[in-house]
């Protein structure tokens, strides 16, 4: 037997082979029987009889053959992959320089992109951690006549009415948040615990089930004095040592009041923007008359498939009915003055906020651009390599490798490279996330949920695969040109010219993208500098702040509260190193303070009522401790307790309420019959209390003691103590204050000790965060473009060695050769900058809302950017230019 060929691989050849085999059997058999003396017909009949059902046997055999073929194909594919991978790994190992540069470049680009993708995914893209997250609706109210940019909450009356009548919402939950003082006991100091006053329905809306015990019943909210509480998993572990019998125990707010713990909530249960440790029934008495008090946060659960517009129009319809039922609560004058209107939004959009969403998308675009630049660099490296390996490619083609084989060959190589890079990028991203999170502004929502997860890793590998495919396709796309190369046996000028064009285009694109990133980063830097220069109205340096809370039950009169603060201030002020001390209910830059309607005794009808202004109770020492300048008198304790209610107003409110007059000596009061007029004794410099990017806030600084005759005043329970002591760090100041406070009253907790500088820098965090990340991206982009330029210029120089040699032999001077190379690089740079500036003008517009007192088309920024990139282009050409200058004409011409 001679072996002829291997088994068939296509279906057609498989069928043919089977027929051949069976025909051989039949024909040979017939011949055999004829030889034994049977006639042709007899022989055929006999063979047919002996063979059995031909069709059945054939189809059975064919079925087996198909299985064999399938198995063999699979083996073949696996084998090819294994062989090609091994081959690709060996090839890559043979050129370690190329491999290393490509790997590092890609790992950095992919790592940065993965990091920001994870941030974007976790903060913006992913649903909130609730079972029906995509149906949760924020319900709030807008008061454009009071404050244009602020949003307020809803009233209890609205809650009941909407919950009962809404056609679009399945349920509504209501809540308030607070820091609740919990009295100390054995082993535990007094503390302020984040507390949520929740409606029983809130748990249904959020889909929270208790880990132990039970949830609230609706009727447990009817009494004004709550009797029950739920605690968080964390608080159960921390304060109760995970006591399995915690249900039924009592939680003491002070000596007199306590609630029964009825259950423990599972770990992670909470509101989207507030993690409460104690949950108490909100006072919700359906029989109570509605009030114009829109301070309660609400989350609705939309019925499945209902749009946000449908919820809005449904609730607007109900609001109209509600107002008609209660004209006393919503008089026409109120509606007219405030422009009161409902506002609903998907909860996720409300929590994350448009600005954060925009900032993260911008950062993601920035790192995507970095990744593109990195990919362009690697693509350039691949182009260089292909040139070097053109003979190998051509040879493979000539030896019968078809397009598919070549594609598999190069794809394996590029995919192997990008997959390894993706693995490295995952580690880079893991490390980078820690850095980024340390830099991230605290206001960035959902921050605690963030870590590198499978979605991030999947993104990383998907991007790597896409890049790998592109790199792998480059050589195949240029294959047809290479064939002609082998045929001509020459140097393949056409090919290299095409490759040159591709290379230059890639570099121009790199420079252009780097310009965009650099311009964006520069704009953010300028914004940040502007922000730092803003006149804040106070001086945070050397100031430590901390919060203290007095228990309501032991401080029942304002005389007692003010006595406490006066004594505390006196004792703290007596400490060595303390220059000044004061207290305020709301520190600047710690979130928007609420506002209250005030009226003045100024006889001018249009300006008499001052809309809604932040009213901040302070102690007399506050202005000196914060270095807020006061014209007139900054009150002292004796003035505070004198019964006139000394008030300091900010300059802005003085201008607004007392136009053309000195407000000092005038009266101002809260728009409520329970209050008397307070006497204005001073005008304070404006403070940017709501954020450095926002205009200064109107503030009325109230005293802790109201004027005689005021029936209701409850200032001074939760205050922030401000200690100006430049020689002390915040921890030391906090420890000293804690000791004094506990000597005065053991039930008073001291928390949140930090430097005022920290609060200021935190308020800058979003700008500085965006700026830092853009700067890093722009930096990487610059370096990568420089590398790209360097590579291309080097290549051009080495390609034109003989030309340069001829020029030099003909008498060209070194300076001419050098400037020729430099010109090449600058040309690429200029084109890149031109394209980049055009892109930047179009692209940085999206930055506008993040900028502060800088226009997106700021000419200085664009000029600096362009100049920087041109310098980079010049620097990148220094090495190649020097090499060109050292070309030996004789050697170059010989080679």
């Amino acid at each position, binding site marked *: *037997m001679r*072996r*002829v060929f291997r088994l068939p691989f296509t279906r057609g050849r498989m069928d043919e082979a089977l027929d051949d085999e069976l025909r*051989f*059997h039949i024909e040979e058999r017939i011949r055999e029987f004829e030889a034994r003396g049977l006639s042709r017909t007899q022989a055929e009949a006999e063979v047919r009889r*002996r063979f*059995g*059902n031909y069709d059945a046997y054939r189809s059975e055999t064919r079925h087996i053959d198909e299985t064999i073929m399938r198995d063999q194909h699979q083996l073949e594919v696996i084998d090819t992959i294994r062989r090609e991978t091994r081959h690709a790994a060996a090839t890559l190992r043979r050129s370690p320089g190329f491999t290393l540069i490509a790997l590092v470049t890609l790992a950095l680009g992919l790592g940065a992109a993965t990091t920001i993708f994870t941030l974007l995914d976790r903060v913006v893209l992913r649903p909130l951690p609730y079972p029906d997250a995509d149906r949760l609706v924020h319900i709030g109210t807008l008061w454009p006549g009071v404050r244009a940019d602020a949003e307020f909450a809803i009233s209890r009356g609205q809650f009941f009415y909407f919950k009962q009548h809404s056609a679009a919402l399945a349920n509504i939950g209501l809540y308030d948040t607070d820091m609740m003082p919990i009295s100390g006991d054995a082993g535990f100091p007094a503390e302020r615990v984040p507390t949520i006053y929740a409606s029983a329905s809130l748990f249904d809306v959020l889909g929270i089930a208790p880990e132990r015990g039970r949830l609230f019943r609706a009727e447990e909210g009817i009494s004004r004095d709550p009797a029950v509480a739920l605690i968080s998993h964390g608080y159960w572990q921390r304060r109760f040592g995970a006591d399995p019998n915690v249900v039924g125990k009592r939680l003491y707010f002070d000596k007199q009041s306590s609630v029964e713990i009825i259950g423990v909530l599972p770990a992670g249960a909470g509101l989207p923007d507030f993690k409460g440790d104690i949950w108490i029934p909100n006072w919700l008495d359906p029989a109570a008359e509605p009030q114009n008090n829109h301070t309660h946060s609400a989350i609705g659960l939309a019925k499945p498939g209902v749009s946000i517009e449908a919820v809005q129009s449904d609730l607007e319809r109900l609001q109209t009915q509600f107002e008609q039922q209660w004209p006393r609560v919503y008089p026409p004058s109120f509606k007219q003055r405030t422009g009161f209107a409902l506002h609903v939004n998907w909860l996720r959009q409300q929590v994350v906020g448009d600005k954060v969403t925009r900032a993260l998308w911008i950062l993601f675009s920035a790192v995507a651009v970095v990744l593109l630049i990195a990919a362009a660099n690697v693509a350039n490296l691949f182009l260089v390599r292909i040139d070097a390996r053109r003979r190998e490619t051509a040879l493979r083609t000539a030896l019968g490798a078809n397009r598919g084989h070549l594609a598999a060959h190069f794809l394996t190589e590029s995919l192997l490279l990008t997959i390894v890079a993706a693995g490295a990028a995952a580690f880079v991203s893991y490390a980078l996330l820690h850095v980024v999170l340390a830099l991230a502004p605290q206001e960035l929502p959902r921050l605690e949920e963030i870590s590198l997860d499978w979605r991030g890793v999947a993104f990383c590998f998907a991007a790597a695969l896409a890049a790998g495919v592109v790199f792998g396709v480059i050589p195949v796309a240029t294959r047809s040109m290479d064939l002609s190369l082998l045929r001509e046996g020459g140097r393949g000028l056409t090919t290299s010219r095409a490759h040159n064009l591709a290379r230059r285009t890639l570099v121009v694109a790199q420079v252009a993208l780097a310009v965009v990133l650099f311009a964006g980063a520069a704009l953010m830097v300028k914004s940040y500098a502007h922000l730092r220069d803003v006149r804040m109205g106070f001086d945070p340096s050397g100031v430590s702040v901390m919060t203290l809370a007095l228990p309501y039950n032991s401080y029942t009169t304002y005389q007692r509260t003010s006595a406490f603060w006066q004594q505390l201030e006196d004792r703290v002020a007596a400490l060595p190193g303390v220059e000044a001390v004061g207290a305020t209910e709301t520190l600047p830059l710690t979130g928007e303070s609420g506002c209250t309607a005030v009226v003045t005794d100024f006889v001018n009808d249009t300006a008499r009522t001052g809309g809604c202004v932040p009213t901040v109770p302070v102690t007399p020492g506050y202005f000196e401790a914060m270095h807020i300048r006061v014209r007139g008198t900054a009150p002292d304790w004796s003035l505070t307790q004198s019964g006139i209610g000394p008030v300091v107003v900010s300059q802005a409110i003085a201008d607004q309420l007392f136009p053309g007059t000195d407000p000092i000596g005038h009266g101002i009061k809260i728009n409520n019959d329970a209050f008397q007029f307070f006497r204005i004794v001073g005008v304070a410099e404006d403070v940017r209390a709501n954020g450095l990017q926002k205009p200064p806030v109107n503030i009325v600084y109230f005293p802790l003691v109201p004027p005689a005759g005021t029936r209701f005043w409850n200032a001074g329970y939760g205050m922030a103590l401000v200690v100006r002591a430049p020689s002390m760090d915040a921890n030391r100041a906090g420890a000293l204050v804690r000791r004094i406070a506990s000597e005065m009253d053991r039930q008073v907790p001291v928390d949140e000790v930090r430097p005022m500088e920290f609060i200021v820098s935190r308020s800058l965090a979003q700008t500085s965060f965006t700026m830092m990340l853009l700067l890093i991206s722009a930096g990487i982009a610059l370096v990568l473009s420089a590398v790209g330029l360097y590579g291309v210029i080097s290549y051009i120089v080495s390609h034109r060695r003989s030309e340069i040699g001829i020029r030099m032999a003909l008498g060209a001077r070194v300076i001419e050769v050098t400037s020729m190379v430099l010109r090449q690089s600058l040309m690429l740079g200029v084109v890149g900058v031109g394209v980049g500036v055009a892109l930047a003008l179009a692209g940085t517009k999206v930055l506008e809302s993040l900028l502060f007192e800088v226009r997106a088309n700021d000419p200085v920024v664009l000029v600096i950017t362009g100049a920087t990139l041109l310098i980079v282009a010049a620097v990148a050409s220094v090495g190649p230019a020097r090499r060109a200058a050292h070309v030996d004409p004789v050697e170059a011409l010989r080679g």
Partner: protein
Amino acid sequence: MAAREEDLDLLRGTLDLLILRALSWGPMHGLAVLRWIEDVSRQQLQIEEGALYPALHRMEQRKWLDADWGYTDRNRKAKFYRLTPVGRRQLASQVTKWSRYTQAVGYVLAADGAR
């Protein structure tokens, strides 16, 4: 076209064993395997010849056999099968199994009456 009733009905496993045994002499095409079985069984074992091919191909799939195309002595193209090492091991184990079985059946048939 069915086999005559008195013909010994061959179980598939038995056919496999016979094929393996045939090929243990060297590479053969399907018809040669069949002729060998006919010869050595003295025409006593008659099988439907078509059944040979599914059996051969199935054994090829199981890697007991390897196949190549080649030419017969009379210069006709034919598919030749030969035993792989796996097939050889298979033959050994099946032979043992078969002789143990026939021995057992032999004992049963040789036993005289009920005890």
